[in-house]
């Protein structure tokens, strides 16, 4: 039998609702299985841990062919909000928590959360802009050091 996975490092690079959830679900799922999990938020993925933004992530209705709606319809004001509220309802029914609660859950489950230093500098952010569950702002180098022995998953 192959060696079981003991540690995962998940990079969240996108800031749309559908861009953020896969990483959160995988991190939480890892902890549920007793696998160590580290989340590294970079670029627009930072929105998932920025205190003022994390409750307002939206589904992208433009440039997303899998939504199966024409681009010009997706661009109508309110379309993204509509798609977002529909998706949130579906997720709630499956017991998938809202982003803030999910972040708290992963943190309480022993998962570690980090913000990417390059992006933090680029967007002129500081530690106080993030949810309290965020452990630290780290560089790519530190991320690789911490990820020693882990599977790195990019989302």
């Amino acid at each position, binding site marked *: 039998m192959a060696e079981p996975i003991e540690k995962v490092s998940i990079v969240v690079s996108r800031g749309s609702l559908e861009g953020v959830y896969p990483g959160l*679900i995988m991190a*939480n*799922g890892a*902890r*549920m*299985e*007793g696998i160590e999990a580290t989340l590294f938020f970079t670029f627009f993925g930072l929105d998932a841990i920025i205190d003022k933004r994390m409750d307002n992530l939206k589904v992208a209705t433009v440039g997303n062919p899998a939504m199966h709606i024409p681009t010009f319809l997706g661009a109508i004001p309110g379309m993204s909000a509509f798609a977002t509220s529909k998706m949130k309802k579906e997720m709630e029914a*499956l*017991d*998938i*928590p809202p982003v803030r*609660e999910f972040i*708290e*859950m992963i943190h*309480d*489950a*022993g998962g570690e959360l980090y913000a990417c230093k390059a992006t933090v500098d680029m967007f002129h952010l500081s530690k106080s802009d993030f949810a309290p569950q965020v452990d630290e702002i780290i560089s790519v180098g530190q991320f690789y050091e911490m990820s020693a022995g882990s599977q790195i998953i990019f989302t």
Partner: protein
Amino acid sequence: METRELAGAAIAFDEDGHMANRQEWNENVALALAKEEGIDELNDRHWIVLNFMRKVFDEMGDAPSIRKLTKESGVNTKELYQLFPKGPAKKAAKIAGLPKPKGCI
């Protein structure tokens, strides 16, 4: 399917190593299963989780998600991971005599 002796009774297990027949489960079997998982003692808090899982399984046919478990049982996420280190959902289900949970959350 394999059968082996646990707490003085012959117990059947499924391919995931969880109990195959819930009827064979009792508190002594739970304690023996817990020991196999590295949990030497089951205290009141463990029992809150185990009983809640069994109750939800009876009602819904699957073990509860961690979210439901922590919201409704009164045991929060941190404590849950302390009570059942290294994989609370699977471990608690196993000790409770339930099949491996199907959910992702």
